[in-house]
């Protein structure tokens, strides 16, 4: 059974078709990447999946439940987590409060009171290694720390599907490798499916994803295991220009 299933999902803005009849599935515990240039409709696709705005056409199922018309918060309750391209922690709340908010309103939110949420937050602060910043306002952290807080906040929601928007944008190759192994670690320990959206960091795609979806002008170009996707002639043609070296290096 697929965790998430999208069928002919389409979204238009005015005359522009941002997402054009996308059909794909995501399985539980899978590590997947969505790849494509800026403006290919990746962020819109994310917003459609977690319900920031509704799709114009098509259907979305989450664990065989039709969530097409669910608002964002209900989808979050079902187990969809999300991080943003530019991290958006609640700036004047402390790191602990930020993460606790995730726990309070996430998929297990109904049973979790404020005290319990704070304890859970401490656990995740431990995981991301920001213990010394626990009581600081999140707005004062460095971009990378904000990113970690946001990931912890999403994890505290106990999601079954985590959507990460450009988790590695602007990082140098070393930090990318660190983030890749961190994400893999999360997947293994928390057992959740992670969809990461990556613009053009082939190093991250190759290291991270088991499967890749390439989007081009709002439509699905290929949906294949990573190696095949990155050497697919269509992908090379419209997107890569030449097959990435990292594939050979890591393959």
């Amino acid at each position, binding site marked *: 059974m697929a965790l998430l299933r999208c069928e002919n999902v389409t979204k238009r803005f005015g005359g*522009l078709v941002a997402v054009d009849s996308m059909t794909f599935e995501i399985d539980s515990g899978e590590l997947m990447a969505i790849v*494509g*240039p*800026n*403006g*290919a409709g990746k962020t819109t696709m994310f917003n459609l999946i977690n319900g920031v705005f509704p799709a114009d056409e098509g259907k979305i199922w989450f664990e065989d439940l039709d969530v097409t018309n669910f608002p964002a918060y209900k989808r979050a309750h079902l187990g969809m987590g999300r991080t943003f391209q530019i991290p958006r922690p609640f700036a004047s709340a402390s790191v602990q409060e930020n993460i606790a908010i995730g726990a309070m309103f996430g998929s297990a939110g109904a049973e979790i009171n404020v005290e319990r949420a704070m304890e859970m937050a401490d656990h995740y602060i431990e995981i991301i290694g920001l213990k010394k910043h626990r009581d600081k306002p999140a707005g*004062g952290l*460095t*971009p*990378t720390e904000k990113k970690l807080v946001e990931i912890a906040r999403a994890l505290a929601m106990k999601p079954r599907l985590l959507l990460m928007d450009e988790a590695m*944008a*602007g*990082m*140098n*190759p*070393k*930090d*990318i*490798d660190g983030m890749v192994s961190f994400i893999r670690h999360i997947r293994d320990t928390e057992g959740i499916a992670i969809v990461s959206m990556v*613009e*053009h960091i*082939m190093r991250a795609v190759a290291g991270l994803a088991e499967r890749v979806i390439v989007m081009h*002008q709002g439509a699905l170009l290929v949906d294949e295991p990573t190696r095949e996707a990155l050497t697919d002639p269509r992908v*090379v043609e*419209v*997107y*890569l*220009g*030449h097959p*990435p070296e990292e594939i050979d290096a890591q393959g």
Partner: protein
Amino acid sequence: MLRVEKLESGYGPMQVLWGPDIEVKAGTITSLLGPNGAGKSTLLWTILGSVKTRQGRVLYKEEDVTHMQPHRKVDLGLAMVPEGKHLFKEMTVYENLVMGAYRRDAMARKEENLEMVYSMFPILAERQKQVAGSLSGGQQQMVTIGRALMTNPTLIMMDEPSQGLAPKLVMEIFETIEKMKREVGLTILLVEQNAAASLDAADYVYVMHEGSIKAEGTPEKIKASDDIKEAYLGL
């Protein structure tokens, strides 16, 4: 051409730049490398003047322009290609380019510059009547670069010109940058995430970290130094 001395600036209570020194020689590509949050973009905006300088000086063509307003600097031939495109999405390609020639001096040379932009990016000539927002990502980037060329610049500062582009377009952008140096004779100050490509294109490199310069030298020197690559570039 451009010299930055002990520049300090930031936003509100947060100081970002801690006194970097930089020199950009005429007719070269100078590349600024470093991790996210190192203050590279802030440095460019401070040089342009839209982020206020708190300490230090900016010298352009041997003239102190530290506290000059951004639009006055555009008059002097200092252009900028901002990160994330920032073109006028509801105007046509042509109108976008004409906006680049907004200052009077640039307006006088509008036709020549327009021709130069169209010869550099023939696709823009074809699409000049089209609304800029409907172009593809790569074409939008061309409009932004073209618009900067329309300001009749002598020095162009480029902030992440390849960001968000398909890998196959990244090489094209770098070719364009080299062409701008070779054929138009522009001086370029380049901020790039793509360290490898940037090192190949540059004549001189500065490595920034936490708001100050940690290393500088020719690309060969930087490439040769494993310490720098390991510590700041992660190559």
